[in-house]
């Protein structure tokens, strides 16, 4: 391996557990500890935990923080209550996507936490700093100071409360958070949110490296299954959640990705990319993200062509033999003419084409806590 890979604070733990390690977003990350199917099912039926310390934490604060975040963020933070979280995107002026992210409204005025994709931390930070000109805000990339564990699955609440003693976690609604302190560490600040990337109930816990190590060890000892990025992808895919670089990118707008509900062109008079989205809506979308289910067991993968009568009409962005439904399914970006539910298309897999039917992009019924 020529390039120098970054390591999360939990890297040694992964190595000791015998994880299969692989580069992801510049980090040496665990893909699986045992196998993807077992870890996937642990999250669907019990509880699993992911080291997601590679994710980025960028803090925006200052007198203009409200105005600034609403300017760069596609969702609407106006009237957002403290402790609430919103999902949305940062867009380029042409409407394509800089990144998709979570915005946490902090319990102090004029302060937000932006949680961004690991692969985009440097790009996002530079983008935010460039847009901040003329706004009285401070943008701080604190990604190196924070670790993060995602505790996910139907038993996540039980482990959060009983094992970690996070009593208040039980009362959290979906997409809300609270702050607490982890006892006996130098940097005790801890953020616990009812969020995730699996389609199951669960929590994302942000804390200092020292605290994250202790939380990991405590959960492991209690029987929470360590889960790698392999099943993180199969889980989020089944739940219809996008991954930057696949369903969203600097060539794909949220409207094309079917995520228009997170880009508030009607509610907000201004945000970067809004005009382009309005124009795209008026002109009509040329292509859109859909689900496709194959009858065959062949597995559609990212990059495979979607065809109709031998002519390419789209491309697969993510595909799997779905572990939870045992069906070969994918998300694909397809010419608008072929995006109606039930449309018959074909996917070229190596030398053969396989018939498929256009479906919704969510292949698994999610189990979020309301």
């Amino acid at each position: 391996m020529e390039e120098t890979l970054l390591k999360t604070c939990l890297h040694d733990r992964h190595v000791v557990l015998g994880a299969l390690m692989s580069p992801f977003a510049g980090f040496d990350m665990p893909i699986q500890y045992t196998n993807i199917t077992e870890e996937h099912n642990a999250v669907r039926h019990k509880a699993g935990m992911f080291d997601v310390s590679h994710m980025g934490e960028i803090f925006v604060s200052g007198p203009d923080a409200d105005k600034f975040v609403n300017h760069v963020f596609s969702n609407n933070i106006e009237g957002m209550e403290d402790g609430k979280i919103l999902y949305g995107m940062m867009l380029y002026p042409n409407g394509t996507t800089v990144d998709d992210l979570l915005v946490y409204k902090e319990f102090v005025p004029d302060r937000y936490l932006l949680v961004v994709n690991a692969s985009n931390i440097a790009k996002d930070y530079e983008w935010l700093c460039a847009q901040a000109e003329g706004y009285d805000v401070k943008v701080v990339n604190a990604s190196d100071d924070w670790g993060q564990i995602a505790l996910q699955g139907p038993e996540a609440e039980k482990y959060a409360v009983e094992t970690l003693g996070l009593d208040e976690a039980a009362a959290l609604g979906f997409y809300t958070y609270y702050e607490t302190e982890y006892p006996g560490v130098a940097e005790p600040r801890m953020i616990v949110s009812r969020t995730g990337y699996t389609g199951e109930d669960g929590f994302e816990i942000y804390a200092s490296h020292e605290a994250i190590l202790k939380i990991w060890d405590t959960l492991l000892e209690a029987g929470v299954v360590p889960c790698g990025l392999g099943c993180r992808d199969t889980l989020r895919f089944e739940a219809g959640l996008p991954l930057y670089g696949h369903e969203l990118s600097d060539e794909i707008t949220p409207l094309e990705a079917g995520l228009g509900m997170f880009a508030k062109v009607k509610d907000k008079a201004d945000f970067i990319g809004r005009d382009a989205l309005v124009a795209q809506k008026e002109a009509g979308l040329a292509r859109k993200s859909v689900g496709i289910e194959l009858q065959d067991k062949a597995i559609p993968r990212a990059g495979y062509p979607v065809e109709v009568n031998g002519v390419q009409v789209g491309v697969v962005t993510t595909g799997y033999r779905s572990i939870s439904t045992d069906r070969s399914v994918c998300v694909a970006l397809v010419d608008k003419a072929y995006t109606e539910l039930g449309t018959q298309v074909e996917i070229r897999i190596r030398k053969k084409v396989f018939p498929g039917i256009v479906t919704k992009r969510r292949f698994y019924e999610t189990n979020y806590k309301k």
Partner: protein
Amino acid sequence: MAKTVEGLYYSESHEWVKVEGNVAIVGITDFAQHAMGDLSYVDMPEVDDELEKGEEFGAVESVKAASDLFCPVSGTVVEINEELEDAPELLNVDAFANWIMKVEMSDPSELESLMDAAAYEAMCANE
């Protein structure tokens, strides 16, 4: 450690070949199945397919990835192992006991370009 079987021929792309008369029985090695992890699909050729040495003839797929299969010798597919269509995991159980296809060789001298078990093991040790 991945095992090998004496008396077979091995390709750089991790296929094994067992020769019975003019027929090459082709499978994937233990090293390959181990590297792939749990297999969920085997994309097989069809009987009567004419394959060139080095030509892609199918793939084995795990949850995470597809790995192309390359034909170690030129010839015509005379039989495929249909058992693998419903039970791809057999390759994980025993990669050498479960073949993928049988090829009627058009040029058996191509076997000479393949490796024996010792040479293949040495190659894997460097991967």
